[in-house]
């Protein structure tokens, strides 16, 4: 087959032209001096507003909490559609051969450590780099790794993950409604700010991040489990 067809050639020319244009733009861009309007006021007032040391967490959960809820629902919709599309598919007879000694020992060794690291990153999301999304991905690995060792029936494990996911997603909304009915805006942090830099500080932000972490972890792992069980032929 003719690999370098006309279409490929024109794609190459287009990409090169795009590269030249973007290079011309990048020469004029102000590096390290981009205008920073919202950011400056967030850096100035973030601690007074939310009590969180990590300002990214303050932006994600306090200033843009509603956006984070939307993001979670997009992830939920994606996971739901993946499950829906794959239920029609034939389930694999034996998805993977049982893991050998090395793999199974490593997984049994790693799983508790992954849980510890994941929860550490989630709990300290308002103090140090990290948070619910980052720790949630690590938790997803902790949920998913045992599947690489021994094959479990899809249903029972899936129900557990679905339970975690719905409780976490529900509690995120319940916390938001709580502040709405106590006379504030939806998802506005409450419970006071606490002592700056303590684990129990920044009001509801750590609680929200725990909900986010559990939701992301269970959702991503059920995505991976669904894809693992789909037959590929």
């Amino acid at each position, binding site marked *: 087959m003719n690999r370098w067809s006309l279409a490929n050639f024109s794609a190459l020319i287009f990409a090169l032209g795009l590269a030249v244009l*973007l290079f011309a733009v990048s020469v004029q861009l102000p590096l390290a001096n981009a205008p920073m309007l919202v950011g400056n006021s967030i850096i100035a007032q973030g601690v007074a507003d939310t009590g969180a*040391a990590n300002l990214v967490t303050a932006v994600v959960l306090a200033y843009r909490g509603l956006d984070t809820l939307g993001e979670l629902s997009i992830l939920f919709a994606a996971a739901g559609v993946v499950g829906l599309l794959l239920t029609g598919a034939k389930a694999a007879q034996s998805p993977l051969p049982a893991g050998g000694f090395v793999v199974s020992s490593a997984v049994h060794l790693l799983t508790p450590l992954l849980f510890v690291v994941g929860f550490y990153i989630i709990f300290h999301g308002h103090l140090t780099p990290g948070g619910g999304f980052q720790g949630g991905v690590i938790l997803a690995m902790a949920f998913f790794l045992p599947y690489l060792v021994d094959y479990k029936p899809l249903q029972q494990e899936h129900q557990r993950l679905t339970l975690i996911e719905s409780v976490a997603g529900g509690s995120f909304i319940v916390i938001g409604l709580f502040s709405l009915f106590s006379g504030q805006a939806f998802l506005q942090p409450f419970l006071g700010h606490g002592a700056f830099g303590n684990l129990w500080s920044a009001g509801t932000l750590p609680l929200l991040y725990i909900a986010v972490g559990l939701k992301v972890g269970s959702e991503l792992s059920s995505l991976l489990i669904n*894809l693992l069980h789909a037959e590929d032929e």
Partner: protein
Amino acid sequence: MVSDAQAVQWLLYGGAFGLVVIGVFGLLALNNAFRLLLALIILESGANLLLVLSGFREQGMAPIILSTQAQAGIMNDPVPQALVLTAIVIGVGVQALALTLILRVKQRYQTLDMRQIKALMEKDISEQHQVAHLSSYESPAQISAGRESDKA
């Protein structure tokens, strides 16, 4: 003469824009559905890198306040970082969805080549609606060969 700051600027923006260009070229030139998804992921990471770069300050620290008393130094913009966090998570959702669709198409048509998939889909659609299937001069050799073996 290129100063150090300029060299760093070209490196950083070159990295971000380079990933974007590689992704666009991949989307245009590739035919394998899974490779198209990979090109999309590369394009996405280029865009994310560019967004993070827009909040970068010279000598800037991570936007984490260490103490309320001491005056903090220059900090990077936290807003693009939070936006990119959102974009990455949504990107994962989109990728998983695309991967599932690719998996289903593979199960149905036993191929990942977009040209073959397109021809087979057109054939399926015209069969469903009972209209004559017009074969294009671009249709891959395998499909026309398969059609001839059907006749035989």
